[in-house]
């Protein structure tokens, strides 16, 4: 895994489970990524997005504190930021308009994440 490719990238992380967010952050930091967040709620994620000067990519949990919503995804689309959904649900939980979006299944595998990020941020 080449850290160089992801190093310096700014990635927004929206994940409501602290432990999952923590380990994911640790993993991404190892890859040289700058983390925005993590955000446990939709509001927090939108706030971070609004404040950030630079967002290269986002990883968004479909279910943030039981609220299945796509406000974050919509905002990312509006800003032209590419993103991947993270979810424990199958792909069927994703609505039609996001059928093309990347989905990272929990639990995360380090190699899978790095691969996905490289594919999606290049």
């Amino acid at each position: 895994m080449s850290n160089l490719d992801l190093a310096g990238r700014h990635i927004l992380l929206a994940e409501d489970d602290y432990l999952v967010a923590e380990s994911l952050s640790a993993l991404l930091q190892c890859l040289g990524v700058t983390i925005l967040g993590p955000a446990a709620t939709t509001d927090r994620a939108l706030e971070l997005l609004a404040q950030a000067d630079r967002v290269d990519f986002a990883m968004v949990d479909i279910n943030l504190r039981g609220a299945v919503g796509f406000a974050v995804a919509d905002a990312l689309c509006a800003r032209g930021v590419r993103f991947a959904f993270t979810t424990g649900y199958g792909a069927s939980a994703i609505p039609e308009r996001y059928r093309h979006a990347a989905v990272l299944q929990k639990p995360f595998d380090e190699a899978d994440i790095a691969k996905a990020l490289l594919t999606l941020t290049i």
Partner: protein
Amino acid sequence: MKYLTARPTGINARVFVEGALRWLPREPEHSPLADTVVDDGAPGTLAPPRKRARLLLAADDAELRNRVYHLLSARWQVEAVADGQAALDAARRHKPDLVLADIIMPRLDGMALLSALRADPELSNVPVILLSARAGEEALVEGLRAGADNYLVGPFSERELIACVDGSLALAKRRAGELASMSRLNQLSARLTATSDLPSLLHEILDATMELQGADFGNIRICDRESDTLELFAQRGFKPEFLDYFRSISADGRSSCSIALRDRRRVIIEDVLADPDFALHRDIAACGGFRAVQSTPLFERGSGALVGVLSTHFRNPHRPSERDLRLTDFYAQQAADVIAFRLAERRLRESQTRLKAAVDLLHLGSYAWDPQTNVFEWDARMKAMWGLPPEASVDYDVWRGAIHQDDVARVDAALVKLVDPRHGGFCDNEYRVIGITDGVERWIASRGTTTFENGKPVAFFGVALDVTERKQTEQANLLLIAELQHRTRNLLAVVSAISMETAAASSSLGDFSRTFGDRLSALSRVQGLLSRVDITPVTVRELVRLELQALGAEPDGRRVTVEGPEVALPNESVQILALALHELATNARKHGALATPDGRLAVTWRTTDDDAERSLAIEWREYSNLTGRGNAPSARQGFGRKLIEQALPYQLDAQTRLEFEPEGVLCSVTIRLDQRTGAGR
């Protein structure tokens, strides 16, 4: 002047086809041209019952005419005229059975007469014999080319003349017979395709065959495939009591029918008394009144299956000619077609009955649609699925208008495929329908197939089933599976995070394995509670006791006290709280109140209400007086602290406090109790 009298002929036998037999003698007609009619001479020598053929003789040469007239009139009716035109006029007045014409004649010569006869549709089939007094071979050859049947060059003998006329008449009669049979056959074929009265068709075929063969009796039997017997279907001439006895015939009998059924070949018994194979059946034949019989098996086209037997019977010994048998085969094929059609029809009826029963048993609605005219035909069950009464009329708009808006696009897409022959014209679709009069949402499973003609859809037929119940169950199951998957995957993500945390803080593999094992146990305990949260929420007391019990620290009201009201925890708080409690309890047992005999632990909680929200405050207080022993500093920065100070606020918006006071650990956690802790909703 010579006179010819037209005399009464015998009454014609039944003729099959009038038109084909027009050349045969008719009822007597008096010729209006009496001067051309000559007496044929010897009426007394003619046996009245035999029909006599009518000959027309045209010869300019009086000697030739007289001689020929004289020779022929002893046997046939002869009309003699002096030239070709007179002959043609006479023939047009009364069609002769044969014309004898001299080649050289005034007005119209023999060749011209021949051409005129052949050109006249009424007379074209009359046999013509050309006569020539001199050997004008070239003219005769030309005559034969022009369609003459025969010729005689003078001088010819009486025998030559008689034989020539006889032969031509016999040939013409055979030709006419063929023609009549073929006409009959054609008529039957045409009727076969046009009529639905199959029994009467079979009777007609039987009649035609009997007439063809000159049979006295006959019958058609149809093969019953299940019992492999021949059942009487049509008959002519037999006595009813005889037929009662032979209504059903099996393959092991001795009759010609049995043999035909068994051997699948035609059986001909020329004389029942002479045929050794038929010896055992003689009495029965005698009883039936026949001496000869033929049985022709009837085979279905394509499959070659024996579907029946066509038999004809004769009072006298008789063997049908090869020609008769050949024509019989044509009739037999028609009879086979009729029977096969009847069988196919019956099978169709039976299968329709079965289909109807199946459709009823399955509660299937059936529909038909003509894509060209847009005419819809629905049964009552179909209409009920659309929330319509049985008498409601249905068209495209009714059908499509009731489809759930989320499913319309999918149904439309399926429809486009359905009427496109490249997609095979089959559809299998499930969609929702909102009942038109009752507003009930129903799931409809529909299967249909299109019939194409020249690449155009001409008919669409299908069945539909109300699958609402199944769909509801399916969807409930899908939700359950998705939820289960979600929980499992999230749990695994948490386990993986805990293992990373534990590994980072462990001094040895043994240390890791012990701590990680404990934490996994705590996780698994709380999963037990979580599996039923949808039915009964988890209470604070339950969760606290569960964690304490796991360490053997049963609340005893003295050393360990657990006190507070019954409060249901928000579902999403249960797991993370359990993990935090587990860390607190583990720390207490290792280093705190539960590590010394005189330590004390009090867990209390209360709820508070203000205008904005209802909260729950939990307090964990240890009295262990461990100041002197010193608390392990690692615990202060450990996983428990992280959970309490970071995870709970992050995940639940909790307010937390964790103090390592001189008298022991103090931890407080306050969480909101409204339905959802997050701001996401």
